[in-house]
Each structure stands twice: as C-alpha cells, then as structure tokens.
C-alpha cells in the first residue's frame, strides 16, 4: 500500500495545488456482545480499507475518499478532490494559507501484550460468557449486558511537503451494564463506566477485572432503587476519574477546539464561548488547574508521530495555572490566532475529512490520594459513572447526571444517593476546583465515540485525569 500512496501523492503534486495529502487506512474491528447471559452479537470487520485525498487549490479545500482501490476509482477520486476545491474556491472570501513544515519520514508500530485478533475466538467468548452469566444472578436485575470492542488500524499519511509516516495501533473497550427494577422504577450501573476505551489489546479487558466487579454493580443498582436523592441546593462534589474525564472533555476539550471559534462547526457540533481575545489572560479555572493536549504520550489513544495534516505530535499547555493560553488547532486556524499548530487534526478513517480533534487531552495531577481528599471533605458527595451529559452550543452551560453518588460526612463515605445531577457554567465551575488528586491516582480514561463533523466521525481519544473536588456546586436539579 505504501507504493499506492507514493504514486497518488506524486501524481497529485501539480502546480495548481498548493498543498495536498493522501491517507490510507486499513481497519479491523471486532465486537462481542452478551445480553441477559446469552451471546447476541459476535461481529467483525476485517481489512476495511479506505483512501482519501485532500487538496488545496486557490485557497479552498477539496476532498474525496473511497473504499475502492481500483485504478478507475482512484483516478475518479483525484479528479473529484480537485474539482471540489476548484469549484469551491469560487465561493471563498478568505484564502486558506499556512506555513510549510519540515518533512518527516517515520514509522510507529504498537505491540499489544495480547493481540485480540490473534487469540482463539472461543477464549474470548468464554471470558465474556462467564461475566454475562454472573450478571443475571439476581431476580431484581431485569436487563444486563457485557461487551468488548477491539480495534486495530494501520495508517499511512503522506503529503506534498515530503512527509511519509505509517503507523499501527490497537485499542480496546470493555463494558458491562445491569438494570435493576422494583416494578416502580429502574436504576442502572455500568462498569468500568463510559470512558472505557484504552490503547492496548486484550490485556485491557483483563486489567479492568469485570468479573470481580459484577456483584458490586448488581448490589449498587439494587440499592439505588431505594436510595435518596441529593436534597440541598449546593454542595461540594468530588468527581471520580471516569466521569471527570467526560467533564473535562465536554467543558474544556471541545470548548478549546479552535475551529469552533471560527464557526466551522456551528451547523452541527456548535461554537465555543472562547474568543481570540481571551488567549493569554482569561481565567478559565483556579490556579491548580493545568490542562494540556499531548499527542506525544504513547500511553493514550491520541498518540501519533504526525497528525492527519503532517504536524508532528506535540504537547501544548492549553490552560496553565488556571489561565487560558492556547487552543487545539489546525495548520489553517493556528496562524489566525497567532499560534503554532498543535497537532490536533485527525480523521477517523482515510476517507474522512480531518477535523480539529482532541488527542490525549489531560488534566495535570495535583497532590494526594483520593482517600486523603475524601478525608479532607467535611460535607459533600463523591460521584462517578456518567449517566447523562448535555452541554450548550457554546460549551458554557452543562448538566450531568451520574449513576451513583456517595454522601460524605466529616471525611467519611456514608450512604449512596441516586442519579446525582449537577449543573454549572464552565469557567465558574473550573474556578471552583480546589483540589486535584496526585500522580498516584492519575490515569488515562478514553472513548471510542467522540462525535464531531458532518458527515459524522467517531474518534478514539484519551483523557488523563485524577479525581478532583469542586466547591459549592448547584446540585438541586429536579425533573
């Protein structure tokens, strides 16, 4: 395939085109899904190939992609990309321009500890079957499932500046769910929660120890049926890593995607409350809040040697000591903000158009263990496991519900509470952060399903976080 990509990039390198890149992906995936103890889906996609060409002509982007690698199809794709850019430039006021980058020629091949695509299928099935059967062992559990997803993608990226990089990565995602009912209402628990994607192979599925946690989530789901709700108007909340990753994702990650500043996502994903004038001075969070984008960390699913427009992987401080410094950018929008491209342009597959995307978007650790943090909390709630999430068009007003919460009194965990729901305004919320746990609690969370763009793309990305506390948060939301 390298030759195919070489040939395409050489062929497209014509004077009319000021920049072009070609991507090729071959993706394998597999899903195992047991419901109520029975195998319902065992599905695989093998060698799903795609190729895409992006060209810049007269300051306008054109793109075409296909899954068909026949000569006729590739010729047609090149012509389409050129025609899309050439015709599109007639309705373009500001011409897209950016600085050239030094070419990079390199390779990266991730090796999982246990390759799910080489394992015996019956071993994977038996592993999940045991868990699935355990999830059904209580009459109050009316629905349950366990599933895992495995993903492997080989990618080649090449551009007209001479960059040529290929890579191979593996990601895995485990999940289990129970729904308990008392005939009047139903409450669910999941494990390991919705930020459950990780870089790696089957070892990821083993590490989360789903089987050891089946009884715990069954018990908690049943207890939630009779648990009280939070009654007070405002309270201090400690957010566990799984849910905090989503809080970070929605209220900082998406908010600091620079394409939103320019309105490029208004039609679907939305805008951002951030304005260019805020860079370097806006107090986004309290002084302990340090947030960065780091595509150089191979531990996360956002690692790459170059992004999908040839920018080398970078670590960028987005928020330093609470102050907004930088954005996640493309080569096109970085200079418009006086910034250096942050290496955040990514596409899910080669026939998808690259967009400004989170890679490894992280909250830097503070100090101390979760146990210490709970001990230092006089009254509040420890909440985790996302149930509902919603944030406005400008990433300013959010509301989250978690599956479960634990009341804290005088530094000790007391009873559980059902469906804890809190609401906030993004900068007010991050300015209310008074403690973040230390490196011993910091770990990568992640998702396979970050949606953005039209046609929509689902991105794999990671968030490094440690549990954190937020003071005096509105928790009195009632339906």
């Amino acid at each position, binding site marked *: 395939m390298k030759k195919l990509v070489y040939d395409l990039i050489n062929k497209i390198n014509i004077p009319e085109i000021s920049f072009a890149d070609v991507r090729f992906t071959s993706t394998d995936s597999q899903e195992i899904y047991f419901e109520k103890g*029975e*195998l*319902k*889906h*065992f*599905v*695989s*996609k*093998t060698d*799903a190939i795609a190729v895409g060409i992006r060209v810049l002509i007269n300051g*306008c*982007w054109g*793109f*075409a*992609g*296909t*899954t*068909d*690698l026949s000569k006729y199809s590739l010729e047609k794709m090149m012509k*389409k990309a050129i*025609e*899309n850019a050439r*015709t*599109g*430039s007639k*309705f373009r*006021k*500001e011409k897209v321009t950016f600085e050239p980058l030094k070419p990079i020629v390199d390779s990266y091949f991730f090796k999982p500890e246990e390759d799910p695509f080489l394992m015996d299928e019956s071993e994977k*099935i038996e592993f999940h079957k045991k868990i699935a059967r355990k999830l059904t062992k209580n009459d109050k559990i*009316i*629905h349950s499932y366990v599933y895992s997803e495995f993903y492997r993608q080989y990618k080649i990226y090449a551009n007209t500046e001479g960059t040529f990089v290929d890579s191979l990565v593996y990601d895995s995602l485990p999940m289990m769910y129970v*729904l308990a009912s008392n005939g009047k*209402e*139903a409450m669910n628990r999941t494990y390991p929660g919705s930020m459950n994607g990780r870089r790696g192979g089957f070892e990821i599925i083993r590490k989360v120890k789903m089987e050891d946690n089946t009884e715990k989530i069954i018990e908690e789901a049943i207890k939630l049926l009779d648990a009280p709700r939070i009654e007070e108007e405002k309270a201090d909340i400690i957010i566990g890593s799984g849910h905090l990753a989503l809080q970070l994702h929605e209220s900082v990650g998406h908010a600091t995607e620079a394409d939103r500043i*320019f*309105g490029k996502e*208004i*039609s*679907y994903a*939305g*805008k951002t*409350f951030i304005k260019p004038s805020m860079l370097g001075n806006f107090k986004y969070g309290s002084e302990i809040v340090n947030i960065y984008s780091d595509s150089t960390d191979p531990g996360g699913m956002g690692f790459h040697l170059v992004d999908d427009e040839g920018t080398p992987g970078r670590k960028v401080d987005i928020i330093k000591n609470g102050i907004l410094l930088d954005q996640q950018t493309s080569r096109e929008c970085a200079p418009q903000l006086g910034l250096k491209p942050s290496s955040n342009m990514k596409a899910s597959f080669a*026939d998808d158009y690259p967009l400004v995307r989170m890679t490894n978007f992280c909250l830097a650790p503070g100090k101390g263990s979760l146990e210490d943090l709970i001990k230092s909390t006089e009254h509040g709630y420890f909440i985790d496991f996302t149930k*509902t999430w*919603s944030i*406005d*068009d*400008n990433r*300013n*007003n959010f*509301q989250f*519900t978690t599956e479960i919460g634990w009341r804290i009194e005088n530094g000790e965990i007391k009873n559980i509470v059902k469906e804890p729901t809190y*609401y906030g305004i993004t900068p007010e919320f991050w300015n209310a952060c008074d403690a973040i746990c230390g490196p011993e609690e910091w770990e990568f969370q992640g998702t396979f399903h970050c*949606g953005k763009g*039209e*046609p*929509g*793309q689902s991105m794999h990305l990671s968030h490094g976080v440690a549990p954190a506390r937020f003071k005096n948060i509105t928790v009195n*939301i009632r*339906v």
Partner: protein
Amino acid sequence: MSFRDDLAQICEEYPELKFDFRFMEWETDFCRFYQSQINYNISKTSFILYADIYKGKKSYGFSLVNPTKNLLTEKIEEVKEIIDQLPEDPDFVDIEDDLTKSEEKEKINNIEKVSLEKKISILSQIAEAVKPFHFNIFGTFIANYQTVFMVNSNGLNKKEISSPIMLQLKAVHEETEVTVLESFGGENFDTFDLDLFIKNLMMKVKAADKKIIDVEPGEYEVILAPRCIGEYFDYLEGSMSAASLDAGRSFFEGKLNKQVFPSTISLVDDPTEPGMIRRSYNYDGHVYKKVVLIENGVFRNFLVNNYYSHKLRMKKTGGIGASLVMKPGEKSLEEMISGIKYGLYISNLHYMNFINQKETSLTGLTRDGTFLIENGEITSVVNNLRFTEKISDILNSITEIENKTYVVPMSSNYGNFNIYTMKMPHVKVKKFKISSSTKTI
C-alpha cells in the same frame, strides 16, 4: 452475473447455513460552508457488505469492504470453522421471511442533478440576501445516492435506491451571533423553491434583529417549532420499539391501548406520506408500512422487528420510526402566538440526553433562535436556555396544535449520513420547565 446474484447463489450453495446479506453502494457529495464561504467539499464512495451467518441458533456477523464472491466465500469458510464454537442464542428463531416487494423504481440521482456549481449558486444568492442585515450563512448542503440489496436464505431478494438531498442553513449575525435556521429536505429537488426559502429565512432574520435578554428559570408557556416536537417524538420513539420493551427501558410498557396523552395527539410512522423521504424496507428487509403509534392519545403499537417478534411473540410491524407524522390541529400559528401573554418561541433543540429513559426524563437546550413572546407578539431574542423535563409531561401539557404540518429533515449524521424526514406542526405547551440559562446565544 451481478453481486446480488452471487449473494442469492451463495444462499443456495450452503444449505446447512442461513445467510442474511445487506450490500450497500453509497455515494455522497457534501458541501460544508461557514461565514458565507466554502469550508470544504467532500465526495465519498463506499461498497460494503454486512453479513450475518446462522447455523441453527448460532450466529456470526461480519462486514466486507469491496466484496467479491471469492472474498465472501473465503470468509464463509473461515466462519464455518468458528461458528460451532459459539454458544446458541435461545431467543433466535429465524431470519426475515417477508418476501413482499415494494416497487423497485429508479430514482433521480441528486448528486448528479444538483451539482456543486448549482449548490454554490444557491448559497451565493442566500448569502447576498442576508448580508445587508449583517448575517452570514453556515451549514451543509448534502446529496446522497445509495443502492441497498437485501438477500437472505429465506428467498428474500430486494433492492432499494434512495437519493435524499438536504440543505440545512443557519444565518448568524456578525456581532451578536443570534442564529436562525431554515432547512429543506426530501427526494425531489424540483420542489425546492429558492424564493420561498429566502423569504422564510428573511422573516426569521428580521425577527432576530431585536434586543437580547435573559429569562429566569421557571415554567413557561411555549410554542415549540415543528423541529422541536419532532425531536421529542424521535426520542420517545426509542421507547416504542420492542427492543426497548425487552430491555426494560420503555415508557410504554403496560400502556398498550391505554390513554397516555391528550386526545388531540395522534402520531403515525408513515413512509408513504407525500413530501417525505420514502424508504421501502426496514433493516430486516420487511416492507416498511404505515404504523399507527398514538391514536387520539392512546398508545396503539410497538415497532416490532423480526428478531423481537419471535422473542416477545409480538406481530411484526415493519415500521422503523423514520417517518413520523403528527396529526395537525385547528389553530394557525398566528392565533397560537397571539394567545400567549408571556412565553417563549423555541426554534430548535440541542444536545438532549435522557436522565431516565423509562420515565422519559431528559435535559437539553434551546438553539438557533429562542424568542420572548409578550402579549401575543415576539418582542426579544432570548439567550439559549436549558430545560430538564419529562417528554411525557411536555406532551400532556400540549394545549394547541397548529392546523398545518411541515416537512422537517433530520440526519443521523454518522455512518452513511442517513437523511430522514418527519412531518410536524407547531405546538403550544402550557408548562415547560426552564432549568437555567446558558447566558450565551
């Protein structure tokens, strides 16, 4: 011999197995624009086969990109090695056996009919119209062309062609960022009336040229635009499926043939309704037929596919909820607005998510134009607002329904950018709970 014929032949070549094939040839031309200029133009094609193989109650599924008979045969041989190792699904009985066909007629390819040049010409005219009012246009102009072949071992052999087209356009004020939305969607672009589209958009642009205010949380009388009530029904439709009933998540569990909403509310899933994007089959290949969901407030039918018809012993309905149509009421929009002393007009919704699906409780936000109504007139633009509500409470609080309906195009966005339509009127809701303001437009 076509690949469709190959699929039928394979069904015969392996009598010990049962196959359920779905082969898709898909193409899209996707124009995305912002700030009254092109963002990017995308053209994509894909060829993909989805296959489920059954041996008794055991099954294995896979997909193949650019499939050929040889590739498929190789894969089947691999699956034969695996399938015996798999546990059975005791709930599986058989694959789809509805052999009824819809008419296989060719459809106009809107990718060819509406070229990028033509799209740009239309967008330029709209951009010029809003420019004097300091608005820019943002959005998407999409055409798809898709052929789907459904072939299975029960003799099902069907073909469906679709070519939906959609223009989703937002006009955004250069300084205030006040946004209004206008859209077109369907299969016949000859019905697109540019002058009317601009006229409707300009009415909204002019309404948006008002002072911006905030409102306090609380209960409001509101007018929901057709898109909003359509979205609520879209979310509620999830509770109308047999799958959600089986999963213990359905609001309608135990409510079949019971009065659940006011008698003024009737809802059908009807792909034959004029002006709608018409689909011929559901995902199993069953003919997609009209299904009455809510009749005069009474819940009448779950949407039941092949698998759950066997599992739950319910009759297959063939509906998939992709063509929802609400029965209009008796009032004009003007009459509905004029009767409100202090309330809101909500144009569009954003980022809704269930808190508890069975209870229909959810949260979400308003978007693309929220307006204050005072003494029967729209007087101000309101910041986007958050609501935390039960859909069932919203529907039970509907007091008036407009006497006409509008085709509302929607898209599932992911995968093959499936565009579908619904037909909805404006509705008036007596008590609508606003839980907070976003303090932004």
